[in-house]
């Protein structure tokens, strides 16, 4: 079923790496509202209310994200399936990507395999200093950090993605549990991994999908961890989405979900090099 949810929300995502655009509350008062960074929370409320499988194409907004592949206002295709499993959703996402780029072959890797193949590193076993040294050997850095995930994300963006084969649709799954976001975490070969996947084509991230977390208690623990990280970095502490929490407590059905950057898909199907080529009026022209 196609749905439409509001772009305005009373609470934004708590992820320390995503900043929502804050706006005045239309009804006045001291509490601001936020432009959604994805329709995830509203769609999960619909799922909890018994909608069954749903999809929508909508605008999403992220503060400060501007570059060759980023515009702060962009178009997202997001959908949830109550009738498919994790593997079934990956197949469906790949089929959608193939609609845009043609029936290219698929390369499926776990996060650990992708790092082993393109960085010669074990992302689960490598120590903080091994990750940092690998990065420092490959680029001049202006910063240091004792956050393992920061180094993994840097290596993913600058070493792994550019090394992916050009002619394959690449699916990476089983992310470290520390990068689970709102995916379930399971144990595979004695390692805690997130039931999360990303799809890439020509080294560009296109979609991010989860076997959705259903445990409201675990959701609260992750929000608390986000808040701790934000506090440590001197970032703002956004309010908690109590409506989502209530819906999760009432019961989110078993479901899988994915968000796809539609502008990027259009870029790929048109051989565009910059997102500005597929948006009539990017940020600087609004």
């Amino acid at each position, binding site marked *: 079923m196609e749905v439409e949810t509001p772009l305005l929300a009373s609470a934004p995502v708590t992820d320390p790496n995503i900043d929502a655009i804050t706006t005045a509350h239309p009804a006045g008062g001291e509490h601001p509202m936020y432009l959604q960074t994805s329709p995830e929370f509203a769609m999960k409320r619909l799922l909890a209310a018994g909608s069954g499988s749903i999809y929508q194409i909508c605008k999403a907004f992220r503060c*400060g*994200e501007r*570059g060759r592949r980023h515009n702060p206002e962009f178009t997202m295709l997001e959908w949830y399936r109550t009738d498919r499993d994790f593997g079934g959703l990956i197949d469906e996402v790949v089929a959608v990507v193939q609609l845009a780029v043609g029936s290219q072959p698929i390369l499926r890797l776990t996060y650990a395999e992708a790092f082993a193949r393109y960085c010669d590193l074990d992302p689960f076993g490598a120590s903080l200093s091994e990750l940092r040294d690998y990065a420092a050997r490959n*680029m*001049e850095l202006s910063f240091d950090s004792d956050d393992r995930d920061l180094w993994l994300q*840097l290596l*993913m963006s600058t070493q792994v993605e550019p090394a992916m084969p050009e002619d394959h649709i690449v699916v990476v799954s089983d992310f470290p549990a520390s990068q689970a976001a709102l995916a379930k975490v399971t144990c595979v070969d004695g390692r805690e991994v997130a039931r999360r996947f990303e799809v890439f084509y020509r080294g560009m991230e296109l979609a*991010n999908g989860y076997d959705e977390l259903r445990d409201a208690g675990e959701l609260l623990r992750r929000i608390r961890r986000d808040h701790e990280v934000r506090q440590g970095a001197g970032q703002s502490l956004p309010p908690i989405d109590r409506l989502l929490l209530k819906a999760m407590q009432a019961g989110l059905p078993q479901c899988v979900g994915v968000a796809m950057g539609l502008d990027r898909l259009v870029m790929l199907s048109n051989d565009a090099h910059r997102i500005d080529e597929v948006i009539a009026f990017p940020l600087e022209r609004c």
Partner: protein
Amino acid sequence: MASYSTNEFRSGLKVMLDGEPCSILDNEFVKPGKGQAFNRVKLRNLNSGRVWERTFKSGESLEGADVMDQEMEYLYNDGEFYHFMDPNSFEQVQADAKAVGDAKNWLKEQDLFTVTLYNGAPLSVTPPNFVELEIVETDPGLKGDTAQGGTKPAHLSTGAVVKVPLFISQGEVIRIDTRSGEYVSRVKS
């Protein structure tokens, strides 16, 4: 001096990095959907001319560099320094041979050059894309040889040597593309 955050890094912005004035050439924003944002930045060190690559965490900032481009008139060379003057304020600066670099081949009195100043002192000198200079010495012109496209060396008033077509004679003024150092055309006087 103001400081600039990574999201303000634009091509041409002058900033200080490791104590050196630099000009930003390119700024690539890299961010996983879920994860830390980075900026991979290419900068030209304006002292050495070398290109540096540096990866920043988004939101880091650099001090601006007191670097500006000024159109200035070339006055003369005193044997060690090259002297330039702002034609509006009549303020004069002296540039050493390192700052002038290859522009010395095209320096003609009263021509305008772009002088890049760092803390008020010349860092580099950029000639206009085209200059007109007189040939002070070349082999005699050969009439009727225009079609064959042969060339010969010609010494210019600045001391530079460029290749010119055979029909060009000593005393003529020619137009040169300073980016390639090549002859473009004869200038009718």
